[in-house]
């Protein structure tokens, strides 16, 4: 079966971002960008499904600026077969991205679509669910285990009190949680080979999708800083401070 994986180019998770002085957003100039960590897990899961003989083709798709080609090449080096870039310079909302992905799903007709559970920049945790709604497919969000059998997929999900397993009819949407797998690294020969794999570029216009949004970001600010704390010398002093100064125990 064909598996479609969506990946996002985001600021690297180790970077401590700074808010711009004019409060229009965070400063991403000259900041290291990477594939969103949850998307890496999604790519890895697709590759494992292919290694198990469940998946026959992996198509990786990204919605974003032309520089997102780097992340698509990374996914190709990890084992995806071909890539699609839906190029848009604008900052799109999750709903707009879900609509664009729906257009790609209609075109490609995958049996399984794997996304990350959330992107570490916008922290929205919406796109997979929205894509599932738009395509009318079942959704297995926050997946820690995925097992395809016949025309259904069993997804074990991380929920607040533990784990839950649901069974979904294929085609279905899965979003990955951290513990689904440990993503591999791309080897140098595979990075070289990935340069020759096909990468198709589309635009929202070509897909006939409007990316208009009902949300507007008015400003972005730095969070309130915590006032500097103190170092205590002993456990006794700590307990004394907690009891008498902070009054929390």
């Amino acid at each position, binding site marked *: 079966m064909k598996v479609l994986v969506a990946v996002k180019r985001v600021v690297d998770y180790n970077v401590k971002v700074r808010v711009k002085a004019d409060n229009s957003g965070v400063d991403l100039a000259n900041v290291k960008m990477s594939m969103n960590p949850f998307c890496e897990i999604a790519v890895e899961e697709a590759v494992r499904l292919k290694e198990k003989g469940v998946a026959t083709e992996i198509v990786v798709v990204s919605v974003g600026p032309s520089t997102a080609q780097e992340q698509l090449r990374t996914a190709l080096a990890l084992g995806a077969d071909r890539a699609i870039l839906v190029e848009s310079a604008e900052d799109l909302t999750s709903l707009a991205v879900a609509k664009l992905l729906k257009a790609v799903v209609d075109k490609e007709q995958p049996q399984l679509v794997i996304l990350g559970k959330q992107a570490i920049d916008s922290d929205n945790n919406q796109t997979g669910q929205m894509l599932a709604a738009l395509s009318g497919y*079942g959704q297995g969000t926050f997946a820690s285990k995925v097992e395809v059998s016949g025309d259904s997929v069993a997804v074990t999900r991380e929920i607040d009190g533990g784990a*839950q397993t649901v069974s979904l009819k294929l085609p279905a949407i899965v979003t990955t949680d951290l513990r689904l797998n440990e993503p591999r690294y791309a080897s140098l020969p595979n990075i070289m080979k990935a340069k020759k794999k096909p990468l198709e570029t589309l635009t929202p216009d070509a897909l006939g999708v409007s990316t208009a949004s*009902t949300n507007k970001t008015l400003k972005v600010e730095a969070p309130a800083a915590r006032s500097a704390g*103190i170092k205590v010398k002993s456990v006794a002093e700590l307990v004394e401070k907690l009891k008498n100064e902070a009054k929390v125990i």
Partner: protein
Amino acid sequence: MTILVIAEHDNKVLAPATLNTVAAAAKIGGDIHVLVAGQGAGAVAEAAAKIAGVSKVLNADNAAYAHQLPENIAPLVAELGKGYSHILAAATSNGKNILPRVAAALDVDQISEIISVESADTFKRPIYAGNAIATVQSNAAVKVITVRATGFDPVAAEGGSAAVEAVAVAHDAGISSFVGEELAKSDRPELTAAKIVVSGGRGMQNGDNFKHLYALADKLGAAVGASRAAVDAGFVPNDMQVGQTGKIVAPQLYIAVGISGAIQHLAGMKDSKVIVAINKDEEAPIFQVADYGLVADLFEAIPELEKLV
């Protein structure tokens, strides 16, 4: 303006996060209705009717809603929600699972995990693991929003006397089914609602050593949390994880033991009132956010702390 709040429950008990969500609804202003979708959840509907400020409870009782499957519940919420100005749910695993599906069905953008209400159409929410706060305005006809519980003090669970109305709308998409679940058992307070949280990280070295934290937590009436490192190493189950990808907590007192303080962990606990860090590495980033820091070996400090509190 009428606001629809989706109740968080397990068919037996109304989850406390619903009270924080109603508090956010009260800040927006207007009539507040609560939807209880489930199977045999009459007791939950009764409890919802008693929440202060709620004027009506809708009880949708159907076998298809028993396990909160989004494929069945989202169409119900979207259909009922058309007449409302706002649809709110707690940013729990159910809320996060269901609500974006509702938003897409209504063709509107969602606002996730709001921490404050600026006005009826403007909200604040953290982005980049809490390293920036965005103010977002929505001009959607129906504003679909998840609420971060720690951003709002809960309303009173008693005092209201709303009417409970049965809703007959049935949706069964027939594309998903519940197979089973494994819930972690714990006698301690729930992590996201606890007044005191004691968390362990990689520095605990193994799962067995968490017994020191459990002993301390039991003495303090605290919940026990963990960093991703501790969960990934298999010391404790993953539903104990505090952070950007785990649970968000804001207790009165957060004690971080053997936790370095990575950005992703801080995202889950830096709104705690008082933060205590116990770490033997005095350069650990956790000390930059700690109100009280103790540079010490946790295996000596924790038993001593347990004795003294």
